[in-house]
């Protein structure tokens, strides 16, 4: 909690919070990187499930989404941290925000496993059923992440 108070009042964070232009830029980048991150993961999940780009190899699809996914994740995390820092003391005690972070952590783990595995599964004659299951869990968790994200302002009027 003390850390949150300190964070909220650091020079960088107050500069962003007090500037409409700066805070809007951070917000826009947070949304934009979310779309890139989730979109690139969903495509790999859909490919493994046999629903997207079926004529292309799953390993190839994962390979071409690789950079976008990691760039999206880094940018999303960085801007998310700045947005959290601007109102850290309020977010700290927010239950829905805790749920959001937990869902995202799970989604990142499953998304990482799927991205990592796709390179090997793509070389097999058929995508194993276990891989499809993992892809489905990843897909569901990323959709749940967006839902958890929009529920924070909706249920608690924070953010």
């Amino acid at each position, binding site marked *: 909690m003390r850390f949150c108070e300190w964070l909220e009042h650091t020079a960088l964070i107050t500069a962003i919070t007090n500037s*409409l232009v700066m805070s*809007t*830029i951070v*917000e*826009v980048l947070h*949304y*934009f990187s*979310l*779309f*890139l*991150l*989730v*979109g*690139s993961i*969903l*495509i790999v999940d*859909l490919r493994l499930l046999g629903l*997207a*780009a079926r*004529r*292309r190899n799953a390993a*190839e*699809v994962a*390979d*071409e*989404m*690789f*950079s*976008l996914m990691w760039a999206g994740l880094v940018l999303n995390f960085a801007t998310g941290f700045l947005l959290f820092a601007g109102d850290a003391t309020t977010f700290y005690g927010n239950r829905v925000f805790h749920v959001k972070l937990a869902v995202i952590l799970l989604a990142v783990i499953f998304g990482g496993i799927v991205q990592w595995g796709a390179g090997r599964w793509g070389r097999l004659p058929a995508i194993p059923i276990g891989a499809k299951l993992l892809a489905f869990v990843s897909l569901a968790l990323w*959709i749940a992440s*967006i*839902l958890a994200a*929009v*529920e924070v302002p*909706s249920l608690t009027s924070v953010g």
Partner: protein
Amino acid sequence: MNRLLLQFCEWLQHTQWAMDLSGSTWAYPYVQLTHFAGLSLWLGTSVAVDLRLLGAGRKRQAFAEISEGLLVWNWIGFAIAFAGGFMLFATAAPEFIVNSAFRLKVGVLLPLALVLHIAIQYKARAWDQAAHTPLAARIAGLAEILFWLAIAAAAASITYFEHL
């Protein structure tokens, strides 16, 4: 024309489903989810092609192949985003339609970005056959990313223009 548009917005806002939607506390986030999930598919697949045009990423595949492989989910994403966006619009149509940021987003930036997007999909095959990626292709890729960033910025600014 403007009066007709405003009448349509009034009617839209007072349709039963739009009133149910704006009156419900639980349904609204799900509509937002629809809009954002659609946007993820649309922008993830579009920007993947744009970045490849710019020469970023692992250049193992031709961008025409990427573009064609993702084409179906690209437009499924757009359809989902559009449907979700239309529902969000319907909950407060008369306010949105007079909002400067919304007008800029939907009336100017969105149509331009779509024309550019379709042009890129149409030209991808020809650009691939050139020995080097033409300058026009790089500019088009960069311009599309900037367009979608501008659209996101306009969307984020809608709230600043409320009641003006």
